[in-house]
């Protein structure tokens, strides 16, 4: 082939970004499709990463920007893969580009439009702990740095009134005439990196999520403790914005849980909750942090040592026992956690002002549709099924379609990144194979 070999990467999280840049850096043409207005994925929502306690967005942002600026990568943000035809070596793909109603070429991302936009709506990127406007930038480090108008909420698009943003924008970037457009691309292989979602915690009435304000999930905690989050990084509990005295972390909420349909372990909770507990101590050394666990799963490189440090240097308290129930004191909004300390074999109760649930990680909500479009199989949990979990962990059930990161099952960032690079190798192999007549050069008579 004389023209550049090309690859479609689906999902703009850290895995998708890694796969894209690895391929682009060696001269491949990469199309990176991300359904949200910005790339970055889950990692962009985290405050810090374990076990190095790096600032998550700080180490991710450079990769996001490299990826976006790369001459060989076309980032198709706010887009969805609609159809796939063909086979390994030559897939034809239709991608729907949703209208932002903002001209990406003109928008400077100054945000004045958002300041003046009269329509306030919940900000799901902040897990609805903060608001945003109908015209918004998903988050401060968003890439690309382009505003997006929410068509369900924009007063003009719904009621035909307002247009304040349009009048205000000096760059003349607002364009209500934008329509959804379908772009067609041809690629040799496809890499899926759609990441994960979280199980609905209201399935566990005993823990009172949704009923008790001060029971939150870990991703909400990440935003809560993050400087660019809804509280500006101040550790306060939702009910009264007061500093908690005790923060409790409950692991395995829906993980290793047959009833919840999730036999598997979510892999990352033990470590990120240790990290979160350390963050509590860093923000407020006098606040107690308690972690309820069943088996402490700290097996990745440096992580056992990390837990040891959490206990030794930060005084994080670990209790082996999965709480039975959590009840709220209606006056103080503080919570009583009932549990059996299985090591002292006593039923005890702990008063906590903030409870963080580590809920099971599950495939993204729209995985089924995507699988149908790609024609690949899913496993019983809805993760992308790999050709062989032992020796082909990166292949899906369709040749030329590869998957990496969380979408094939729970994985931490470094495993996801290693796998992402791995799928880049796979994609490169495909392009070589189809550049040549024979599938694999084989030594004659060797």
């Amino acid at each position, binding site marked *: 082939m004389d023209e550049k070999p090309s690859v479609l990467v689906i999902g703009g999280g*850290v895995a998708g970004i890694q796969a894209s840049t*690895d391929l682009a850096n060696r*001269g491949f043409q990469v199309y990176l499709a991300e359904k949200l207005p910005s790339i970055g994925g889950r990692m962009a929502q985290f405050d810090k990463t374990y*076990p*190095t306690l*790096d*600032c998550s*967005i*700080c180490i*991710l*942002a450079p990769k996001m920007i*490299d990826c976006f*600026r790369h001459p060989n990568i076309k980032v198709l943000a706010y887009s969805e893969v609609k159809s796939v035809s063909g086979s390994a070596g030559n897939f034809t793909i239709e991608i729907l580009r949703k209208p932002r109603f903002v001209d990406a070429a003109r928008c400077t991302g100054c945000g004045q439009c958002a300041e003046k936009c009269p329509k306030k709506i919940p900000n799901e990127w902040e897990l609805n702990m903060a608001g945003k406007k109908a015209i918004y930038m998903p988050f*401060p*480090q968003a890439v690309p740095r382009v505003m997006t108008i929410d068509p369900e909420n924009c007063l003009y698009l719904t009621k035909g009134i307002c247009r304040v943003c349009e009048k205000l924008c000096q760059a003349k970037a607002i364009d209500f005439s934008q329509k959804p457009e379908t772009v067609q691309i041809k690629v040799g292989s496809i890499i899926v990196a759609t990441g994960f979602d979280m199980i609905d915690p209201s399935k566990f009435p005993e823990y009172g999520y949704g009923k008790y304000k001060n029971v939150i999930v870990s991703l909400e905690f990440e935003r809560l403790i993050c*400087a*660019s989050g809804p509280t*500006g990084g101040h550790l306060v509990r939702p009910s009264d914005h007061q500093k908690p005295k005790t923060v409790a972390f409950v692991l395995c909420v829906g993980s290793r849980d047959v009833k919840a349909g999730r*036999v*598997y*372990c979510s*892999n990352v909770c033990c470590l990120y909750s240790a990290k979160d507990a350390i963050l509590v101590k*860093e923000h407020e050394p006098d606040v107690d942090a308690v972690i309820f666990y069943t*088996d*402490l*799963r700290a*097996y990745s*490189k*440096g*992580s*056992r*040592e990390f837990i040891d440090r959490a206990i030794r240097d930060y005084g994080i308290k670990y209790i082996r026992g999965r709480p039975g129930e959590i009840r709220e004191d209606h006056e103080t909004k503080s919570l009583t956690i009932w549990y059996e300390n*299985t*090591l002292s*074999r006593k039923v005890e109760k702990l008063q906590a002002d903030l409870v963080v649930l580590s809920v099971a990680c599950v495939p993204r909500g729209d995985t089924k549709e995507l699988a149908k479009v790609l024609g690949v199989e899913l*496993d019983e949990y809805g993760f992308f099924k790999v050709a062989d*979990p*032992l*020796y*082909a*962990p*990166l292949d899906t059930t369709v040749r030329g379609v590869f998957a990496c990161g969380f979408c094939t*099952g*729970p*994985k931490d960032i*470094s495993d996801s*990144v*290693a*796998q*992402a*690079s*791995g799928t880049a*190798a*796979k994609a490169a*192999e495909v392009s*070589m194979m189809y550049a040549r007549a024979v599938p694999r*050069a*084989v*030594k004659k008579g*060797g």
Partner: protein
Amino acid sequence: MQQAETVKKAEIAEKPRIGVFVCHCGTNIGGIVNVPEVVKYAKALPDVVYAGENLYTCSEEGLASIKSAIKEHNLNRVVVASCSPRTHEPLFRAACESVGVNKYLFDLVNIRDHCSWVHMHEPEKATEKAMDLVRMAVARARHLEAQEETAVQITKSAMVIGGGVAGMTAAVSLADQGFDVTLVEKEPKLGGMLNHLHLLYPGMKSAGDTLEPIRGMVEDSPRIRVMTSTDVKSVKGFVGNFDVTLQGKDGKESQLKIGTILVATGAAVLAPKGLYGYGELKGVITQLELEDVLKSGNLKKPKSVVMILCAGSRIPERPYCSRICCMNAIKNALILKERYPDTDVYILYRDIQAYGRNYEEYYRRTREMGVTFIMFLKDDPPVVSADGKELKVSVNDPLIGERLDLKADLVVLSTPFIPQEMSKGLSQVLRVPLSPDGFFMEAHAKLRPVDFATEGIFLCGTARGPADVPESVGQAFGAAARAAIPMALGKVMAEAITPAVDIDLCIGCGLCERLCPYGAIKVEQTSKGKKASVAEAACKGCGVCGAACPEQAITMRHFTNKQILAQVEAAFAR
């Protein structure tokens, strides 16, 4: 020899016009260091024409503010005070270049890792230190000069060290990507750890059946040269141009010129001498020894088997978790139970590591089949003793608060992966670091798991730390992809930090030539007499020559004496 190719150079205004950008890094810096004060302070420094602050300078927004300030204030030097150049310098340099400021006119001050994060309880002093560091960087910036980089050609072949499943996978992938590979294995036969295993999880496929196809691919590929019973004796050179000396067990040496190196040397397994009576009591064996008899079928049906996990790991001298032992024990327990349903199998554990998508199911099935799991605590480990010809394992189960005495005719110890003995030596041959646990250390735990910090050298599999087969395979493909990048491009740009010799000052004494570890600087006869001259491509810019030159005739580009001394001066100029 490499032919040099130059990148265009942005012309510099004579008078420095410096812009300083101080980063809050959310609260990472701003929460401790008084950023506005630092900005105010920076404004007053000589040649600083602009100073500003950002919540996250590394965000698109932050970079945009740098670019617009450069245009608006016509800056020709940029200083960012934020985090480590090891992670962020490339990003900021690119931003500068994009608006015509040569990347060597940029400097990065680390007021996070070296200041706010290490002085969290002394905000005033941290702020003071941040000011000093900014002042030092500005002083250096005043003397920064634009530089040209030279392109280095890359030899399009790789060397994979280690012929286990990771090494072979990486080799095959690289070959399939069109590169020649030399696969070096110290043992006489390929296969590594898998040669010693029986069945593998997940899937319970036999290790042999897993190994065969890939070994076949290695042997059939015309692009892969396999060298067994061979060690890596020495490695010279740098990315794209490594000169390798291999040595066979027969002592025969061979030379090799390759572009990239993959380390897949695997791990060893701890021999638990003195642990739980291993070596003293008959019937106390390791999981590896159990696999061996399960494989050969030389196991006579046991009445009762007790497996003890974390034998030699998660203890002060070896604090890490070996990751795979729990699942390996579970796997062997399943095999035993399937073969001998009425054999009692006990697994004594601390925390069961049945993580991720597949493993909890195995753990569950093992419980279903009647394998009994008993927890023990670090400070109260099981005690193994001989009771006639039978073994007795006494363990305190904290979950019911009772001591249990188990009879056993086999006690199987799960011992951790440990670094290969040759790791230390190889790390010195390759000039790459080891982690505290003795395994090879990647460039970044999260984002560069299969790279070394050194360009052109990569790692995968258990050489990096405990990992099972799927993980090793995933990493192997990953390392192959990373190694393929420079080889596919055919060239990389070499940092312009090499020495420039002032012909008029050089007296041709040859001290530099004697000290240079790469033979990159040589004294040659010129029209002006004996003078030192530099072989750009071979030089890695360590600066040893610059420090040694008695005549100050050598200027280390981008690390000039002038720049460094200005920095030193400034450190105390308040």
